[in-house]
């Protein structure tokens, strides 16, 4: 796990070593933050804990005091409120200052930002709009992991600077001495003055495939801040380079089209049709300016693009290497509000406990508890009720747990097409009703040698249609692989606080899978028992014309409800799933 941080200098697109450049960039980010303050939101820094991050944080601490904000902070704590313990002790209202107000003039640092609760991320995003202190998010997730938690996209969008400290290597001598290496300017000279920086940044952002209009706006602020940090009023080339590398490059979703003159290799991919050609003069630039231009000054757009390319996101490089187009701005489905029984949902009674961290005081119950003791407790001078912390009662809430239905569909053999089509139909039917229950659906398809996650858990019908559109069928039946992957998805869902249910749709016996000396059916039985051991509710839909005992045995091993549906159709599948869900719900909770 720590390997990604520890030793993979060549990870980023096979580039030899851009450590020095990255570090210089990271240090210039600090200068920009110092000059711009809260107007640029802050920075999203991809960095695991380690010496490089520590060195960077130390440098950051020189411009303003840092305040750590753990990612599991209570959203209420941001805004402050009544300090109950102090209020009871002193007999007068004691207001506790919120973190946002208390951190004025300092910098908020959030480690493990990818684990930030959605509510907290939303509050921070709103706070940035209102002019909060600069926020530094440390994204510690593993970039190579497709299923990783991701930093809230709306929050990341508002933070101007995106940095990757992963490739940075610092000299051991400097680290031992405890001081960061001396800063190195990105461009030794600030370069020629730049005219019309906004156009260059907007064009650059469009060429890098950045949809959000916030990016070029923030880039312009970063450029100005960099100039201000240098004590200049006029924007120069170095400022554009810094804006390109800090703001635009990391947000790129595609490579910019190469300039027309020195075209040596074909473009990595076709730009979309709405894209103007690279050297198209922007519409509102005064005409005739370009010809009379003095030769030394470079086109600011090229400057921005060149700088941006030193800081492309690792995802993009990997996607390009695989020949795939990166989807832009897609957020992962995990942004749904999590249900916590102490903080949200419908009221469901009270219990003793300390308020705070989201738990709310049940005042009436607290006073009722305290009332009988008033005679034997020492009377207070002010004649008020004497309440001790044991008297405190907090409210409980019951939250409806949200379900995720994981379909594992056997896409093998001749009947695959019909079965797949009905399974897709069932997914869409469930999703079409899902908004009532906030249910999510996922789909695993197994055929040939392996199982694939055809549809990650989602609530979006639009997304399900798009991703299930091109699912193929035919081949052998790797039952064990299918069951294992379905279990993996279901367990991940359970960790997210949801209630998973697995639905297996197959017509036959396993004929692929299993190790040496183990036949596929035995392997499938092992997988089925593993699923059964998790206690996750499951349904086994046997859709063969004549049900065979193997199906029954598998269903028994995974503790599943067995449903025989010789002629599968989407509605019958949905009915079976609902019946099973109801039964599980009644017995489970």
């Amino acid at each position, binding site marked *: 796990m720590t390997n990604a941080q520890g030793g993979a200098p060549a990870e980023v697109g096979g580039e030899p070593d851009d450590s020095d450049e990255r570090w210089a960039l990271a240090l210039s980010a600090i200068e920009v933050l110092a000059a711009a303050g809260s107007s640029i939101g802050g920075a999203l820094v991809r960095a695991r804990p380690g010496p490089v991050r520590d060195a960077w944080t130390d440098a950051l601490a020189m411009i303003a005091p840092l305040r750590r904000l753990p990612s599991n902070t209570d959203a209420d704590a941001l805004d402050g409120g009544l300090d*109950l313990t102090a209020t009871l002790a002193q007999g007068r209202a004691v207001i506790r200052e919120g973190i946002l107000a208390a951190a004025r003039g300092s910098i908020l640092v959030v480690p493990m930002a990818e684990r930030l609760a959605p509510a907290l991320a939303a509050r921070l995003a709103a706070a940035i709009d209102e002019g909060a202190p600069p926020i530094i998010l440390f994204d510690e997730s593993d970039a190579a992991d497709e299923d990783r938690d991701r930093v809230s996209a709306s929050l990341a969008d508002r933070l101007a600077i995106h940095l990757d400290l992963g490739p940075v290597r610092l000299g051991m001598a400097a680290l031992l001495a405890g001081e960061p290496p001396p800063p190195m300017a990105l461009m030794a000279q600030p370069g020629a003055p730049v005219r019309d920086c906004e156009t260059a940044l907007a064009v650059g952002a469009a060429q890098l495939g950045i949809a959000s209009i916030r990016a070029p706006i923030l880039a312009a602020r970063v450029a100005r801040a960099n100039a201000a940090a240098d004590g200049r009023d006029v924007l120069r080339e170095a400022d554009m380079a810094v804006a390109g590398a800090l703001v635009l490059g990391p947000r790129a979703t595609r490579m910019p089209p190469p300039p027309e003159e020195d075209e040596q290799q074909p473009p990595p991919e076709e730009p979309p049709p709405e894209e103007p050609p690279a050297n198209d003069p*922007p519409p509102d630039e005064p005409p005739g300016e370009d010809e009379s231009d003095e030769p030394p000054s470079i086109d600011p757009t090229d400057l921005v693009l060149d700088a941006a390319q030193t800081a492309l996101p690792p995802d993009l490089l990997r996607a390009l290497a695989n020949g795939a187009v990166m989807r832009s701005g897609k957020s992962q489905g995990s942004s749904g509000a999590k249900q916590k029984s102490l903080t949200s949902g419908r*009221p469901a009674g009270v219990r003793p406990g300390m308020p705070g961290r989201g738990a709310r005081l049940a005042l009436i119950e607290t006073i009722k508890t305290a009332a009988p003791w008033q005679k034997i407790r020492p009377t207070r001078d002010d004649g008020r009720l004497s309440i001790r912390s044991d008297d405190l009662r907090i409210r409980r809430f019951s939250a409806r747990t949200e379900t995720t239905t994981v379909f594992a569909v056997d896409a093998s053999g001749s009947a695959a097409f019909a079965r797949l089509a009905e399974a897709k139909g069932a997914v869409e039917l469930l*999703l079409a009703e899902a908004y009532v229950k906030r249910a999510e659906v996922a789909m695993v398809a197994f055929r040939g040698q392996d199982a694939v996650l055809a549809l990650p858990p989602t609530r979006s019908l639009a997304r399900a249609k798009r991703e299930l559109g091109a699912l193929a069928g035919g081949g052998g039946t790797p039952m064990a692989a299918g069951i294992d992957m379905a279990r993996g998805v279901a367990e991940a869902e359970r960790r997210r606080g949801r209630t998973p249910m697995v639905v297996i749709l197959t017509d036959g016996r396993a004929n692929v899978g299993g190790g040496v000396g183990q036949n596929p059916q035995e392997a499938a039985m092992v997988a089925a028992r593993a699923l059964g051991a998790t206690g996750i509710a499951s349904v086994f839909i046997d859709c063969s014309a004549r049900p065979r005992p193997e199906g029954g045995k598998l269903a028994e091993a995974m503790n599943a409800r067995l449903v025989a549906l010789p002629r599968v159709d989407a509605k019958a599948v949905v009915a079976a799933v609902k019946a099973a869900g109801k039964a599980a719900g009644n017995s489970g909770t």
Partner: protein
Amino acid sequence: MGTPFPFTAIVGQHEMKQALLMAAVEPRLGGVMVFGDRGTGKSTAVRALAGLLPPMKVVPGCRYGCAPADTSPCIEGCRERAGKAVIEAPVPFVDLPLGATEDRVVGSLDLERALATGEKRFEPGLLAKANRGFLYIDEINLLEDHLVDLLLDVAVSGQNVVEREGLSIRHPARFILIGSGNPEEGELRPQLLDRFGLSVDVRTPSDLGERIEIVKRCDRFDRDPVGFAADFAASEKETLDSIAKARVRLPKVHVGDDMLVLGARLCSAVGADGLRGELTLLRAARAQAALSGKKEVKAHHVAEVATMALRHRLRRNVLDDTGSAGRITRAVSELLAA
């Protein structure tokens, strides 16, 4: 909080701006739902509109923002206490945070008072704060279900009824609900969707010239907000005037029988469920006519607002991918040609 970004300085996004103006002219339209990507200026536009509207007259010291001319009694008897005094206050703009607790939204027992003086007093929540203004909910599809239910109930009844913690209180909460969301991140329940009067889709501007202009304007605004706002003062005033005039004109705008027939036929042609759609369509057409200074609703007014008023009410067909907007446009052109 400084100078707000001028409403008329927002580049493009005509449909959204038009929908917001209509909601400001005709509060009974019932709010606007904005679907779209991040960074498309949704919240900027809503904030800007709230900043644009003229200050409203308020009874001084009223925690619910009661209007002096309102005859319904305030629960705290603010008018009796304040006498004839009237102050002006900006139109409230309340941003409902995603993680807001129910207490914060509806209001709750004032803990401070209860603990310190034993007094049972209601501490108004965000709904009270939004009374007579705008309630903006970003990413409404991520809001917890029970809060959504509650908001809908209040938005429709115009009244917040609190029955909790030994309190029994009702107070006015009339606000224009503005929601925004990204359909990729989850569907919205149709019951909720239907309560919104208008629905608009915003896209990130793809026109390069527009994008450049946006960056330029934001940069100028950053450096000199006051000067920038001054540049747009004239157009802001013009918009303000047209809202004010349209509000006066609105009750007098006549809706002919032929327009009622057109509305009914349009709704049945696209399969929009319920009377609410039809009513909203006609109210929107009326607001549109009022905004463009007309005294009579014409067929083109209905056509202009049909997509906004109906696109979120069409019965969903799981197997049909044709966009709602496309279906409505087709029906409109067929009906108008006939």
